[in-house]
């Protein structure tokens, strides 16, 4: 196998755009709407308004992160009485009962991952706008991790759903879901949208300029 691309050309340099649905390369005519010849979805050189959208969605998810952690995600009721558990207080309870591995999983999935994802996206966005750059390979790798770990933050919401339906013993013992779960779900969906709207090819574009 021989690589003919010795000059490091990108598809953009050649006036070609990649269809993000079916990965077909197509000629791109600037100034008009282009459609993939194979799957007919609209194609662009880069995602539309990638940076603006990503900024907006990342800031929104950062805002949603606050109610997601401030409101109780579930309430443990014994004989009709009980206190709401937020995500963090749930983790502290697990630590108190010495369930360290589970506490670590929940802490990483529902606190560290969403926060790291938001911060990671902010770092990527800022790195594109300031001239100070660290290695493109590293940033691409970071983007891949952000994309991969996104959905794992839903973990706590699913756990709440299971607990709510399992622990239902009338007035004796009952687990009720709280508004924190909604905020949490919204935050996770926003971070997934934010990561999807980021175009990793922008990281490499500066090289040619």
């Amino acid at each position, binding site marked *: 196998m021989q690589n003919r691309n010795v000059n490091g050309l990108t598809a953009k340099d050649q006036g070609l755009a990649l269809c993000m649905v079916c990965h077909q390369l197509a000629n791109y005519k600037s100034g008009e709407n282009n459609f993939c010849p194979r799957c007919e979805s609209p194609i662009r050189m880069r995602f539309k308004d990638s940076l603006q959208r990503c900024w907006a969605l990342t800031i929104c998810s950062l805002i949603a992160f606050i109610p997601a952690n401030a409101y109780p995600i579930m309430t443990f009721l014994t004989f009709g009485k009980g206190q709401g558990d937020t995500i963090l207080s749930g983790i502290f309870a697990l630590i108190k009962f010495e369930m360290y591995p589970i506490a670590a999983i929940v802490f990483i999935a529902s606190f560290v991952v969403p926060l790291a994802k938001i911060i990671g996206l902010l770092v990527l966005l800022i790195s594109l706008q300031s001239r100070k750059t660290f290695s493109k390979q590293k940033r691409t790798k970071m983007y891949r991790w952000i994309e991969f770990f996104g959905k794992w933050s839903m973990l706590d919401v699913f756990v709440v*759903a299971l607990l709510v339906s399992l622990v239902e013993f009338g007035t004796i013992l009952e687990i009720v879901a709280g508004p924190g779960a909604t905020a949490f779900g919204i935050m996770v969906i926003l971070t997934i949208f934010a990561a999807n709207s980021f175009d990793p090819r922008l990281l490499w574009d500066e090289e040619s300029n």
Partner: protein
Amino acid sequence: MNQTQYACNECDYLIYLDALEEGHVACCPRCHHHVVERKLNSINRTLAVCFAGLIIFFPAILQPLMSMRILGLDSSASLFTGMKAIWQNDLHFVAACIFFFCIFTPITKLISALIICLGVKAKKIHHAWFKQLFMYYHKADTWEMLEVFMIGILVSIFKLKDLADLSLNIGIICFAVLVLCVNALKITLDKAMIWDEIDNAKP
């Protein structure tokens, strides 16, 4: 020269490749993303995985995953009852998320992969709706969260095991098989090959 032109979808680097053999992967020389991957015996493997997944789908969703016993009272939970309980707690948005991420997208993926592979086998892939269906498959990929729910089951087992008598039910095995099947689709289904098939199909 019979080389095909590809562009890396993470860094836009242009790559020229000869036809790849089955089971080979081509990486981007600049960012090491897997640009093209020819999968082994993709259609037959995908069909097997789809059939297994569809057979196990309803037991996995509806059968109780685990049950617990407190003061002589029994209670059990499945994915479906979990969704229903959240709905009754007035968290309609969260219930909709669970439905969408754990029920709707997996079944969409299984059914569309099955129909597309059958279409390729029967050489009837030229119909326009195959494209549409395959695009749905592509979109469902991002939002499928069964494996997260699987870990959720494990976390809830650990949370409850000291609280009460907890027993695991048959549903958890069905669910694990379903998670395996849906995730195996990512390994077996060769998207690039299906697109080539669709491209070359003649009515």
